[in-house]
C-alpha cells in the first residue's frame, strides 16, 4: 500500500467520522473484518458481505440524563431504541456507496433465525475500540458508558482502530465495592443467587468470572414484548373458562405488550437497572 493510499484511507475515515458526529453519533470506530474469529459461524462480516474489508461502528442514542432520573421504570421502557443509531448507520452506508463507490450494508438491529443476530454488534463495537465488555452485559464506553451501537459492513478499506487496551469495567468504584463487600453495584441490584440475572467475581481489578441468566434477563428486558406476548397467548389457549380468557386478553400486561410490539422502534429494551447503578459514564447524567 502506498503512502498516497494510506492518506486517502485516513481522509475517508475522517470524512465518515465527521458525518457520523453530524448525524448524532457519540463515538465511532473501525474494526478489521477479519478480526471476528470469535464470532459464530454465519455471523462474520465476510460471510455477510463478500469482500468485506472493514466494519464501521457508530455508538450513541443513549437514554438522556433526565431519563435516568425518572423514578418511573415504565418511562425508561419507551426511551430505548436502536432506531436512531441504525438510521445513522444507514446514512454512513449510503455515503460510502454514493460518495466513495464501495459496497456497504448496515447490520439490521433485529434478529434472524432462531433469535440470532445477523452479527454480534457488541463484538464489532469492541473490535472497533468503541467500548469494552462489562460484567452486567452491555458494552461500555469508558467515557459515556452504556449506549446503542450500529455496524456498517463495507468493502472500503480504512485504517482500523482495534480493541481498547484498558477495559471500562470494572470501574474503580466497583473494584472498591467488591473489595469491601464482595459484590459490585450491578450484581447487588440484580443478584443471580437471589432471583436476578447477574453474578461473578473480580480479581486484581479484573472480571474473573461472570454468570448471566439470559432467560431471566429476557423476562425483564422484554417483559412486554414478543416473549411476553407468546406466554400470554399460551395462557389464553390453555384457559378453558371464557371469562378468564377475556381477563387475560384485556389485561394491562397484554395490552402493554401489544403497544410495545406496535411501537417496537421505541421500546426494545425494558430493563435498565444494572445500567442505572453503573458508575461508568454516570458523570454525564448529573445535570441541573
Amino acid at each position, binding site marked *: 500500500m502506498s503512502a498516497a493510499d494510506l492518506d486517502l484511507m485516513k481522509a475517508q475515515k475522517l470524512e465518515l467520522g465527521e458525518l457520523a458526529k453530524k448525524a448524532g453519533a457519540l463515538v465511532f470506530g473501525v474494526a478489521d473484518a477479519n478480526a471476528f474469529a470469535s464470532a459464530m459461524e454465519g455471523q462474520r462480516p465476510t460471510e455477510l458481505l463478500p469482500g468485506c474489508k472493514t466494519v464501521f461502528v457508530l455508538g450513541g442514542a443513549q437514554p438522556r440524563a433526565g431519563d435516568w432520573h425518572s423514578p418511573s421504570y415504565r418511562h425508561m421502557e419507551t426511551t430505548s431504541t436502536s432506531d436512531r443509531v441504525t438510521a445513522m448507520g444507514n446514512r454512513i452506508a449510503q455515503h460510502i456507496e454514493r460518495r466513495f463507490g464501495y459496497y456497504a450494508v448496515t447490520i439490521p438491529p*433485529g434478529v434472524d433465525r432462531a*433469535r440470532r443476530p445477523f452479527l454480534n454488534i457488541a463484538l464489532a463495537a469492541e473490535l472497533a475500540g468503541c467500548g469494552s465488555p462489562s460484567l452486567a452485559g452491555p458494552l461500555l464506553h469508558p467515557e459515556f458508558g452504556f449506549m446503542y451501537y450500529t455496524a456498517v459492513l463495507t468493502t472500503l478499506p480504512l485504517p482500523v482502530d482495534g480493541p481498547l487496551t484498558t477495559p471500562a469495567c470494572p470501574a474503580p468504584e466497583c473494584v472498591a465495592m467488591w473489595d469491601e463487600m464482595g459484590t459490585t453495584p450491578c450484581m447487588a441490584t440484580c443478584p443471580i443467587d437471589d432471583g436476578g440475572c447477574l453474578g461473578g467475581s473480580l480479581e486484581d481489578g479484573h472480571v474473573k468470572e461472570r454468570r448471566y441468566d439470559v432467560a431471566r434477563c429476557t423476562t425483564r428486558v422484554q417483559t412486554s414484548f414478543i416473549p411476553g406476548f407468546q406466554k400470554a397467548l399460551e395462557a389464553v389457549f390453555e384457559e378453558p373458562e371464557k371469562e378468564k380468557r377475556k381477563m387475560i386478553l384485556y389485561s394491562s400486561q397484554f395490552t402493554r405488550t401489544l403497544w410495545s410490539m406496535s411501537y417496537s422502534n421505541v421500546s426494545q429494551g425494558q430493563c435498565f437497572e444494572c445500567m442505572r447503578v453503573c458508575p461508568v459514564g454516570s458523570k454525564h447524567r448529573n445535570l441541573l
Partner: protein
Amino acid sequence: MSNLDKPVNAAQVPDEQGLIAMSRANDIRKLAISSGVDVVGIAPVERWDEFVPPGSRPYDILPGAKSVVVVGVRGPSAGAWQSPDHRLIEMNGYDFANDRVIHQVADHIEQEYGYHAIQAPGLPVGGHQPAFSMMLAAVLAGLGTRSFAANIILNPKYGLLYYSACLTTLELPVDPMLEQDVCPAPMCVQVYKAGGRTPCQAACPSDEGGCLHGTIGPDNRIESTYYDRERCVSRAMNFGINSFQKALEQIANEDDDDRRTMMIHSDFFTRSTSGIAFYKESVAQCFECMRVCPIGRAERKLK
C-alpha cells in the same frame, strides 16, 4: 438530463401563470431530490381515468385534485444485494425515505403555495388492496414502466424504486409518460429467445411453484404477463401479518397442549410476531426477481 432540466417547447412558451407553475414544479423537484429521493415525476389526475374505476381516482380521494407528485427512492444498499444471506436484504430493504419526503412536499405545497396537498394513502385498507396504487402513479408520472417481475415498475436508471405520491389541488406542469418500455431489457429479450423465459421468469417460474410467467412479442415488447400475487405474498411478506394469521389458525386448531406450546414458541411464530413488531425493518422480504433483473444493475456495481 436531470429531472430539473426540462426542455421548453418553443411552441408552448408559457404565460405568467405558466411560469409560476413551472417555477413551483422546479422548487418541488429540488426540495424532493435534496431531501433524499432519487426521482420525481408529476402527472395530471386525468391520466387515472383510463386505468382506475370511479371511486379510486385521485380526485375521489382529494376533491379538486389536479396533480399528483410522485417520488421514488432506492431501497436496499448495493452491499445488501451482494450478501448470500437473503435475510440481510429483507431486513434492510426499506427506510421509508419516500414517505418522509412526500410529507415534506405536501407540507411545502400547503404552507408555501396555499393549496391542499395530501400523502396518497399507501397501506392496504382491505386485504391486499391498497386505496391508491403507487405503482400506477409512478407509470403515469413518467418514472417507469411495468415489468414482468411482479408488475414492479422499473425506472430506466435505477430499476426497482419505492414510490410515494402527493395529491394536490395545485395545477402543475406535467411529465410525459415514458415512451420506451424499460422491460424487457435487450439482454432479457435475448435470454427469452434462447430459453423461453426472461431471467425473472426463470428465477420464479409460475409453472414450477413460483409467481411469474409472460411472453415477449415479435416487436420485443411485453405481449402478455401472469403474476400470482398470492404466492408472492408468501414470499415478499414471509414473516408478518399474513404468516401470523396462518400460524395462529393452526395454533388455535391444535387440541394437544404440548404441541400448541411448541407452535407458539416456534421460530416460525416468533419471527412472524417479530415481523409485525419490526415492520419498519422488514417491509419487503423477497427480491429474487429483482436480483436477476439487469435494469439498474450498473448503479449497484461498486468496488
